[in-house]
């Protein structure tokens, strides 16, 4: 499958308002959050959840006029799916790369130093690992929500998508929680479960995307 730059640009243009808002919020969050970041920061979790839902919802509106247009241009379903996934990944980096650079290159530390933040000494040492963990959150949520919207546009819709979403939402925290102070083996087990879940949603979404219905 060759890259079609125009198609990627089309999807990114659809996502532009969401990504612009997400980038602004993430930069402000990283600059102004007064405590040091941990992997389980509640605000980051809510942000990632909302951003993931927004990305997948926008890319899943296959029955809107503009998506009906792009789906009937002559791109195969596999090419469309691939570019939607690429657009999702780019969106994550658009939202978080500036924020990560601010952490990694010391912009956040400098500002917090100016604010005389008492947590400053442990910020730089710990916070980059939190950012990596947040990206892992996207890796779980994006395939799952993409799958839900793809499932919703199938010719034979059922309540199965809701059930699968529930299962996914159960496994998401299950996979994330043990990364705290649990036994090393549990990290491996839940990491494996998360990998299986990501692979299952990705492959299922890819296959079902071939049969979704664009027109009502």
């Amino acid at each position, binding site marked *: 499958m060759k890259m079609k730059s125009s198609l990627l640009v089309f999807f990114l243009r659809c996502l532009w308002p969401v990504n612009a808002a997400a980038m602004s919020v993430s930069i402000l969050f990283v600059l102004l959050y007064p405590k040091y970041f941990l992997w389980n920061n509640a605000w980051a979790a809510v942000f990632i959840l909302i951003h993931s839902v927004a990305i997948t919802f926008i890319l899943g509106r296959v029955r809107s006029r503009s998506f009906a247009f792009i789906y009937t241009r002559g791109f195969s379903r596999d090419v469309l799916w691939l570019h939607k996934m690429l657009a999702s990944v780019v969106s994550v980096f658009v939202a978080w790369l500036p924020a990560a650079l601010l952490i990694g290159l010391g912009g956040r530390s400098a500002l917090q130093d100016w604010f005389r933040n008492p947590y400053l000494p442990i910020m730089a040492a710990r916070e980059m690992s939190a950012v990596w963990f947040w990206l892992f959150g996207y890796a779980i949520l994006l395939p799952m929500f993409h799958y839900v919207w793809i499932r919703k546009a199938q*010719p034979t819709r059922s309540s199965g998508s809701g059930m699968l979403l529930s299962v996914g939402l159960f496994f998401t925290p299950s996979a994330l929680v043990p990364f705290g102070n649990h036994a090393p083996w549990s990290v491996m087990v839940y990491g494996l479960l998360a990998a299986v879940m990501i692979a299952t949603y990705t492959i299922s979404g890819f296959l079902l995307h071939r049969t979704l219905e664009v027109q009502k």
Partner: protein
Amino acid sequence: MSDAIVTATHLSRDYGRFRALSDVNLTLERGRVIALLGPNGAGKSTLLHLLIGQLEPTAGGSHILGHPSRRLPQAITGRIAYMGDGEEPPGGYNARQLFQLQSQLSPFNSKRAGDFLAIQKLDPRKPFGEFSKGQKKWIRAAMILGSESDVIFMDEPAEGLDPASRIKLYEHLRRHVSDCDSLAVVATHIINDIETVADEVIILKRGKVLVHEDLEDIREQVRELFVPETERVPDFALSAETLGSQAVSGGTRFWMKADKMDTASLAAAITVRPVNLEAFYLSVAEYNHSQAHREIQK
């Protein structure tokens, strides 16, 4: 060797308990312009969506260029051009960007598309959303006509265009079909315009194909009889052989097969003329009062 590039076999589609399309069988060949006619809700758009693989059939199936519509590989999808009624590019795009998008799919003749755009003196750098309804249709038609596609499907392409533009659109479509040896299927309610370029006619009603016939054959076989109010209606016009009839100002129009008419005994005031497509469509789809039209297909 058959030139059939689009086929449908027992193609049906339900929306819940409503059957939108029922047992459609079609074989469409290269080098033809097909007029797809029917009242609102007849199943025209559903048929097009099924043929291009955007909908799953409830029963039966269809093939384009030898591949099942629902499993079209990239090599085939790039050879199909579709202009639908319910889709539109985002308003921020301009014509140049849309042409670039199309050119990434299949061989695209930018000059032909640009020349078509220039007929209406449309600025290719102006955002799509700032054009009028008719101009938007024109730009989308330029995308279709610029492509070197083998199969073209258009759903109400002339809606919103002025009469002169409609004629030019269909002239260019005819040229595309001739130059590229392609097939064009055009669903429309504006029958007089498509009649000038159509080779075949498909009339749908309530999801069923009532007629699929060469336009030339229809013109040869069917006549329109006008009986003024002052004249007695001939007996043959009242028979079950009559395709349809319509009371109009000053008399009644009857449509029937030429070989069922006894023209020798007609009064001078009664006129007979070859049927035009719109009159034929009305006789079959709107004012039909017999099943005799089915004989035309035989």
